[in-house]
């Protein structure tokens, strides 16, 4: 349990998708003008990450890794399909996003009205693909760990985008040098937020 909480906390605060790895910057910059839309996109990202990371974890473990096919029979032990992982991951993500969109539209039209426009954007969000690649690189030992990483990364991403949206809403009233307006100041503020987030580094939660 301690382990899951630690993975979650660390991926929210320390190895934040935006502040430490700059993943998902495109939508981060494009959809951060208003807090409400930022919130919508953030929730959609959490949703998608919670599903895609564990699914890709299982695919990686039982299909792609070196020796992953050994449950098929001993003669398949040496097959290493690792080189296909990029293409498989992105296909799985695109597919899950598509299915999710259809399910949400069918069963909860109210939610679809809020999230619907964001879902197609997410298939090409680097944070989503990045989470799957990090999951693969870090060799998590169970689906539960991978899920808690997915949930944490998503939450961290949402925290970042909601934060910057709030600052940008306020900032529209401030006098920014014309050449810095918009994109430039957003980058600098994001950098300052990243510095603030660095103070979390090293936290570890202990449960006795």
């Amino acid at each position, binding site marked *: 349990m301690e382990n899951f909480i630690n993975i979650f906390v660390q991926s929210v605060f320390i190895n934040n998708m935006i502040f*430490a790895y700059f993943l998902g910057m495109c939508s981060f910059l494009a959809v951060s003008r208003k807090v409400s839309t930022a919130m919508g996109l953030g929730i959609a990202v959490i949703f998608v990450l919670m599903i895609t990371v564990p699914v890709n974890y299982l695919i990686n473990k039982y299909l792609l890794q070196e020796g992953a096919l050994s449950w098929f029979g001993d003669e398949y032990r040496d097959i290493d399909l690792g080189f296909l992982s990029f293409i498989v991951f992105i296909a799985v993500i695109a597919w899950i996003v598509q299915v999710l969109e259809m399910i949400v539209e069918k069963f909860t039209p109210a939610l679809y009205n809020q999230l619907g426009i964001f879902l197609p954007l997410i298939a090409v969000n680097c944070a989503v693909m990045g989470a799957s690649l*990090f999951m693969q*690189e*870090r060799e998590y030992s169970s689906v539960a760990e991978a899920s808690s990483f997915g949930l944490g990364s998503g939450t961290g991403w949402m925290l970042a985008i909601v934060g910057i949206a709030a600052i940008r809403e306020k900032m529209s009233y401030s006098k920014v040098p014309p050449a810095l307006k918009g994109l430039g100041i957003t980058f600098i503020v994001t950098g300052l937020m990243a510095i603030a987030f660095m103070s979390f580094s090293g936290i570890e939660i202990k449960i006795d």
Partner: protein
Amino acid sequence: MNRDSNIYTLVYSAIMVIVVAALLAVASGALKAPQERNREIEKKMNILTSVGKAAGASIADDKNAYIENEYSKYIVESFLININGEKTEGDAFNTDLKAELKKPETERLLPVFVCSDNGSKQYIFPVRGAGLWGAIWGYISLKDDFNTVYGAVFDHAGETPGLGAEIADVSFQKKFADKKIYLDGKFMSVDVVKNGSVQLDDYKVDGITGGTLTSKAVGKMLFDCLSNYTKFFDVQKQNR
């Protein structure tokens, strides 16, 4: 042709999948040999670095040949040992430490590399453990008193850049030299402690500021992995 018909879409995607899969399979097959060679060279390089050799690798004209040459010159012996410290048959270089560490203690066969330079001998032990984010691994070498650390080299899969990732930096690795792993006959290993928190002595190394969790993981990795070799150390000390 109707680009919206189901049949066209299906046939198109089928052809695409086949072409792409074939292309990638061919490419990955053709490039497998140089990729594995790179890994082999890297491993040899790490082993050599842990005993302070191969320092000229970055300026060598032909790096691969240089490493091979140094490796055959200095690494005179390599063998596997079991938990009782007895030598066993096997290919030490190609032993997968990760797989061995997953086995129960009594079944593990762990590699040892021996470096010899002008009569002085160092023993090199591979180590591997879990860092903050992914695997961390490395090699630590002991002088032939099996107590004093000669050198160490570490690498990592994905520690935080600028913080935990600094374990791969020479300045951190240098701190291990001349540390001891035994105190009055008791196995201590070398611990990595938080910067400035305790008095440093022969058994402690100063950790990385901001990379406390990774630093601690290095200490744990050293303890866990070197513990497997304690019987081997005892046997060797008696034989001296």
